[in-house]
C-alpha cells in the first residue's frame, strides 16, 4: 500500500528523514518495500516562459527560443519540438542538470547556434511515456520555480507491505498510529465531523439487516442537492499518488476516506433506489447482478447484497452495482459506512475474482466504530468543497454490538517470552504509546483492545506489541538451554546421505527434478495410477510421479541434445504412491542414470560406452554401503527397459529395485543414444532389511595354489550356472574364483564365447600340492563339459 509522507503529517509532526521513518516502520513490522520520491530526479529543472520562437538558420526542424527562467538574462535554447509557442510555460533543464536518465545538460552548439539548456517533454522528465512534444505547463505556473514543486512531485511515498493481520494499518491514520508509538510522538487528529444537517434521515431512510452475522452494522447518511463534479487538485493529487484514479468528487471522497482512516465506503444514487428501505441480506443462489464494472455476475447465497425492496443494489463489501452508481446526473447521494463479515467478503471476492481495496479491508476486519465516523468525515469533506445539503442524522443499524475485548498480561510472561527484564511500568508505557487502555490489579495488567486491532486476541499478541515498541533490535542474543532429546534420524535418509557421498566420489552429479510428471507420461513408466493435481500449472506438471525414472530419462535426453557425451546422474527423492484405502506412501528412492562414453575426453584410458555391467557393479557397491546383500537377477518384467538387458534387485525377500537399458522404442530422437541405463532403488524398503552380518574368517598361513581355467561354451550358457557347478565340484579347498576374461569373435567358434576363470585353492591345515589339485580340476572340467558343452581352450 502506498502511504504519503505529507498525508502522514496530517496526523503526526515527524521530522525524521524518509529513510529513518522507513527503517523504523520496517523494523516494527510494517515493511517498507520502497521509498518513492518522484521529484528527486528533477533538481535544477525549473519553469521557463518562452519569450520568442524563431526558426533555426541552419536546420528546418529546429527552432531557437529565448526562455525566461526568472534568473538573469533569458536563455537561448535550441529545440527540436514544435508544439510550443511564445508565451507557453515549459520545464527547462538548466546547465549542470542531471536528467532522470543520467544525461548531463551542458552548453552546446547545435548546428552552430549556441544553446544553454533543454526544454523537456513528459518522457524526458520520467513522468510519462508521452514524447510527442514539450510538456506545456499550466498558465499559472510560477516562472523560475522548481518543476518538482510546481507539479507537486516533492512527495515521499512509502510502499508498505502490510501483513494480513494488520488491517488496522491499511490507512494513513493506521500507519501514523504506529509511528506515534515508535517515535513516542503525539497523534494529532482534527475535530471529527458531526451528523448535523437539515431534516431528519430517519424520515427518509430505513435500514434492515436480515442477517446480523453477515453484517454486524450498517450506517448511512443522505446528502441532497449534490453537484457531482471534479475534485479539488489537492485531493486528486493525493489519490493519484497512492495509485487511485480520480473519478468524481463523491467517489473520490469515499476513496479518500478509505486511505485516510481505513474505512471502505460506498455511495449510491438515492434516486435509483425504490422505496426508502435499505435491506442487507444474503444473495439468492444463482441471482444475476451487474457490478459497477459492467460485468454480469452470478451470485451465491453466501454473498452479502445490499438491496431495496425490489432489486439488488450492491455486493456488500466488494463492489457496487452499475444501476445505482453515482453519475454526473446524480442529485441525492446515500453514503454507506458498514461493517461486513470478514469470511463472507473474502469468499465473495475469491469466488468472483474481484479482490478490491474494499474487500481487502473488510477481510482483515475494520473498525466498527468507523461506520459512523467515516460518514461524518465524508460529509465534512463534501461540505468543504462541493455544493450539497446533508440531511441531519445517521441511519444506523447496529444489532450486535461487539463486546470490548480485554486481555490479561503478566509481567513475568512478557519477560519470559521476550527474554528481557522490563518493569510493569515500562510495559505499561509501551502499551499506552500504542493507544491501548490499561487497568491493573494484583495479577498484572488488563489491556482493553481498541475496536480496530483485530490482531490482538491473546497475551502473546500483546507481548509482540511490547517487543515491537521495545525494539526487536534491542533484544539480546542468547542460545536456548534445552536438554537434548535423542531422536534417531529416519534410516532411509541416513542411507541416502551415505550413498550420495559415494556416488559423488564416483563422478556422479546430483540432480533434483520436479515431483510432477506430464499427464501424457507413457504407461510403462507408471507403476501405479498416479495422484493428479487439481489446479496443476500445466499438463506437463499434472501428476505426482510414482517413480523417478521418467524424470531421469528426460534429464539424460536433454543433456544429450546439448551434445553432452558423458552423463552420470543420480537423484534422491520421493515417489508418491496411492493405496486402496486412500492412504499415500512416500518411499524415498534413489535413481541413477548412466549414459554415453566412459573416459570420454580422457587422453590416456581407453574409451567405451557405459553398459549394463558397469551399472550392475555400481549397484552391488551401493548394496555394500547399505550393509545389505543385493541379489541381482535378470528379469523381463519392466516394460520401460530392454527386455533382455534388465534386472531386479532383491534384498532379503523383497524386490527393492530394478535397472536396465531403457527400451529402445522410447528413444525417437536420433541425437539421443539408444544406450541409456537407469536404475531405481527403494531406500525406504532397504532400510527395513536386516543388515548383513560381517563375520571375519581365519586367514590360512599356508600358500595357495592358483589355476586358470579357460573354456568355450555356447552363448546361451550363463556365468552364474558355470560358477555354481564349479564351486560345487571344487569343494571347500576353493578359496576364490574370479572371472577375468570374456571373449567371443576371432578364434572362437561362432555362437560360442570364451570364459576365463582364475581359481585359488588353499588348505587351512597344510601346504597344497599339485597332486591334490589335479583331480579337482579334472572333475570340474568334466562336469562343465557334460553340463554345458564346455571345451577347454
Amino acid at each position, binding site marked *: 500500500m502506498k502511504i504519503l509522507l505529507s498525508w502522514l503529517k496530517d496526523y503526526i509532526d515527524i521530522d525524521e528523514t524518509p529513510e529513518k521513518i522507513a527503517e523504523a516502520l520496517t523494523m516494527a513490522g510494517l515493511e517498507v518495500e520502497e521509498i518513492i520520491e518522484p521529484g528527486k530526479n528533477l533538481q535544477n529543472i525549473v519553469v521557463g516562459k518562452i519569450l520568442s520562437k524563431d526558426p533555426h538558420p541552419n536546420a528546418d526542424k529546429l527552432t531557437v527560443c529565448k526562455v525566461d527562467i526568472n534568473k538573469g538574462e533569458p536563455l537561448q535554447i535550441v529545440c527540436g519540438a514544435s508544439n510550443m509557442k511564445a508565451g507557453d510555460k515549459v520545464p527547462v533543464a538548466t546547465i549542470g542538470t542531471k536528467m532522470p536518465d543520467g544525461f548531463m545538460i551542458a552548453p552546446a552548439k547545435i548546428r552552430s547556434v549556441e544553446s544553454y539548456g533543454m526544454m523537456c517533454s513528459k518522457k524526458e522528465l520520467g513522468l510519462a511515456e508521452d514524447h510527442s512534444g514539450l510538456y506545456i505547463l499550466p498558465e499559472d505556473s510560477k516562472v523560475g520555480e522548481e518543476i518538482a514543486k510546481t507539479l507537486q512531485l516533492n512527495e515521499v511515498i512509502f510502499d508498505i507491505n502490510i501483513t494480513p493481520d494488520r488491517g488496522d494499518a491499511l490507512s494513513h491514520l493506521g500507519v501514523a498510529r504506529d509511528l506515534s508509538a515508535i517515535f513516542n510522538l503525539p497523534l494529532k487528529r482534527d475535530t471529527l465531523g458531526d451528523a448535523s444537517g437539515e431534516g431528519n434521515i430517519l424520515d427518509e431512510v430505513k435500514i434492515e439487516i436480515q442477517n446480523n452475522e453477515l453484517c454486524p452494522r450498517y450506517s448511512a447518511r443522505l446528502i441532497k442537492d449534490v453537484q457531482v463534479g471534479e475534485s479539488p487538485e489537492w485531493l486528486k493529487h493525493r489519490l493519484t499518488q497512492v495509485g487511485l484514479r480520480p473519478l468524481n468528487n463523491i467517489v473520490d471522497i469515499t476513496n479518500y476516506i478509505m486511505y485516510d482512516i481505513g474505512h471502505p465506503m460506498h455511495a449510491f444514487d438515492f434516486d435509483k433506489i425504490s422505496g426508502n428501505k435499505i435491506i442487507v441480506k444474503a444473495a439468492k443462489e444463482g441471482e444475476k447482478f451487474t457490478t459497477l464494472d459492467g460485468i454480469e455476475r452470478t451470485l451465491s447465497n453466501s454473498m452479502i447484497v445490499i438491496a431495496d425492496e425490489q432489486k439488488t443494489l450492491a455486493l456488500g463489501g466488494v463492489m457496487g452495482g452499475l444501476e445505482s452508481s453515482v453519475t454526473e446526473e446524480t442529485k441525492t447521494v446515500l453514503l454507506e459506512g458498514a461493517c461486513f463479515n470478514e469470511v463472507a467478503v473474502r469468499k465473495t471476492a475469491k469466488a468472483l475474482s474481484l479482490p478490491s481495496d474494499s474487500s481487502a479491508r473488510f477481510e482483515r476486519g475494520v473498525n466498527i466504530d468507523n461506520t459512523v465516523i467515516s460518514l461524518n468525515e465524508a460529509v465534512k469533506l463534501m461540505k468543504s468543497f462541493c455544493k450539497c445539503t446533508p440531511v441531519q442524522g445517521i441511519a444506523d443499524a447496529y444489532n450486535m454490538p461487539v463486546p470490548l475485548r480485554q486481555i490479561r498480561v503478566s509481567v513475568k510472561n512478557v519477560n519470559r517470552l521476550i*527474554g528481557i527484564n522490563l518493569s510493569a511500568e515500562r510495559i505499561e508505557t509501551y502499551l499506552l504509546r500504542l493507544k491501548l487502555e490499561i487497568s491493573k490489579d494484583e495479577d498484572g495488567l488488563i489491556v482493553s483492545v481498541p475496536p480496530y486491532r483485530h490482531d490482538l486476541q*491473546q497475551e502473546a499478541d500483546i507481548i509482540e506489541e511490547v517487543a515491537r515498541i521495545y525494539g526487536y533490535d534491542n*533484544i539480546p542474543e542468547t542460545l536456548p538451554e534445552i536438554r537434548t532429546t535423542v531422536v534417531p534420524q529416519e534410516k532411509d535418509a541416513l542411507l541416502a546421505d551415505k550413498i550420495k557421498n559415494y556416488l*559423488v566420489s564416483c563422478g556422479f552429479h546430483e540432480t533434483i527434478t520436479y515431483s510432477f510428471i506430464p499427464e501424457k507420461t507413457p504407461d510403462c513408466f507408471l507403476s501405479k495410477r498416479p*495422484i*493428479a493435481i487439481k489446479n496443476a*500449472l500445466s499438463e506437463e506438471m499434472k501428476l505426482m510421479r510414482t517413480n523417478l525414472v521418467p524424470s531421469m530419462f*528426460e534429464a539424460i535426453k536433454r543433456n544429450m541434445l546439448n551434445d553432452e557425451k558423458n552423463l552420470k546422474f543420480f537423484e534422491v527423492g520421493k515417489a508418491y504412491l496411492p493405496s486402496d484405502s486412500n492412504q*499415500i506412501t512416500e518411499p524415498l528412492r534413489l535413481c541413477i542414470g548412466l549414459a554415453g562414453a566412459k573416459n570420454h575426453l580422457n587422453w590416456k584410458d581407453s574409451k567405451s560406452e557405459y553398459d549394463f555391467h558397469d551399472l550392475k557393479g555400481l549397484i552391488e557397491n551401493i548394496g555394500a554401503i547399505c550393509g545389505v546383500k543385493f541379489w541381482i537377477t535378470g528379469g523381463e518384467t519392466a516394460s520401460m527397459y530392454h527386455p533382455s538387458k534388465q534386472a531386479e534387485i532383491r534384498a532379503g525377500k523383497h524386490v527393492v529395485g530394478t535397472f536396465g537399458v531403457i527400451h529402445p522404442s522410447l528413444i525417437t530422437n536420433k541425437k539421443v543414444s539408444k544406450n541409456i541405463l537407469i536404475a531405481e532403488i527403494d531406500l525406504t524398503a532397504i532400510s527395513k532389511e536386516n543388515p548383513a552380518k560381517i563375520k571375519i574368517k581365519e586367514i590360512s598361513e599356508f600358500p595357495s595354489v592358483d589355476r586358470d581355467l579357460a573354456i568355450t561354451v555356447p552363448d546361451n550358457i550363463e556365468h552364474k550356472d558355470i560358477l555354481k557347478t564349479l564351486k560345487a565340484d571344487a569343494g571347500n579347498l576353493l578359496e576364490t574364483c574370479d572371472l577375468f576374461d570374456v571373449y567371443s569373435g576371432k578364434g572362437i567358434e561362432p555362437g560360442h564365447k570364451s570364459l576365463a576363470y582364475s581359481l585359488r585353492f588353499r588348505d587351512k591345515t597344510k601346504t597344497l600340492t599339485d597332486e591334490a589339485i589335479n583331480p579337482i580340476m579334472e572333475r570340474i572340467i568334466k562336469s562343465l563339459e557334460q553340463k554345458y558343452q564346455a571345451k577347454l581352450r
Partner: protein
Amino acid sequence: MSDNKHELIVEFENDLQTVKDTAALENIRVKYLGKKGKVTEQLKNMKDLSPEERKTFGSVINKVKLEIQSKIDDLKSNLERKEQDEALRKDTIDTSLPGTFAELGTFHPVTLIAQRISELFIKLGYFITDGPEIEEEYYNFEALNVPAHHPARDMQDTFYLENGRLLRTQTSPMQIRVMETIKPPIKMITFGKVYRVDNDITHSPMFHQMEGLAVDKNVSMSDLKGTLGVFVKEIFGKIPYRFRASYFPFTEPSAEVDIQCIFCKGKGCNVCSNSGWIEILGCGMVNPKVFESVNYEPGKYTGLAFGLGIERIAMLAYGINDIRLLYNSDIRFLKQLQ
C-alpha cells in the same frame, strides 16, 4: 719415509681433482686401492721390513688407506647422487597434461546448503526428521492457526490433489507432527520439498525448506535471535543482519531476518530493491494456539520456530539468477559446483 706417505696422499688428491664421474673415480680407486694399487703395493712391501719398522710403517700406510677410502666413498656418493639426478632430469613427462583419475561428481546446490545448515543445528543438539509432502489440510493450515478463508492463506497459493489432500506449502506441518508425537524438551529440524502455485525466475512450484523448532519451559525470543545469529554467521560469515517484526499465523511474536545485501554491501541495488537488505528467513515464537492444537498444557511451554527457503540461500551463495537452473539437470550448470 713419512714424506713418502704424504706424497701418496698428495698424488691421490691431485688425481681426485680430475674426477668427473663414477667411472673415473673407480679408476682412481683401482690405481690406489686395487690389487695392484699404489697403497696395496706399499702394504705388500711391508713384508721386507723389520717388525719394528713394520709396525710404524703399517700404522702410517693404514691411515693413508683409510683416508683415501673415505675420500673415495664421499666423492662416490656425491657423484652417484649427481648422476642419478641427471638421469632423472632427462626422464621427463609433461606434467601439464590433465589428470586422468576418475573425475569427482557434484552435490546439488540445494543439498550443499541443506547439509551445511543441518550440520550446524545437529552440532547445536537438534535432531533431524522427515515427513510427508502430500499433507492433510489440517496439518498444513488449521493446526497452524490458519483457518479456512483466512487472509493469511493468500501468503501461500496451494496445490490441491484430486484425493482431497494438498501438497504442503511449508515444512511447518512437521512442527505439529513432531509435537503430537513427543513432549518437550524438543529441538528439531526438518528439511524437504514444499510446493506453491508460482512459477517465474525467482519462484518455483517446487522448492525446499528447512524448518527448526525448539520447545521447552523457558525458550525466549532472545534465544531465537541468538540461534539465528549463529546461523547467519555460519552460512554467510560476518555480515550485518537484522531481526524485524513480521507476521506468521503460527508464531507470535513473529519476525523476519534480513542480511545486508551481499551484492551492494548495503548501498542499495536492484537485487535488494534499493533497501540494502535481503530477507532470508521467517521465524517467531510458537503461537499458543499451535500448542493448543497439539494439546500441550496452556502456558506451560514456549518455543522458537524458524523456516527458510534453501533455494533462496543457494541462489545468494552461488550467484544463481534463475531458479529454474536448479531443476533442469543441465550438466553444464551442475559441473560448476565442484
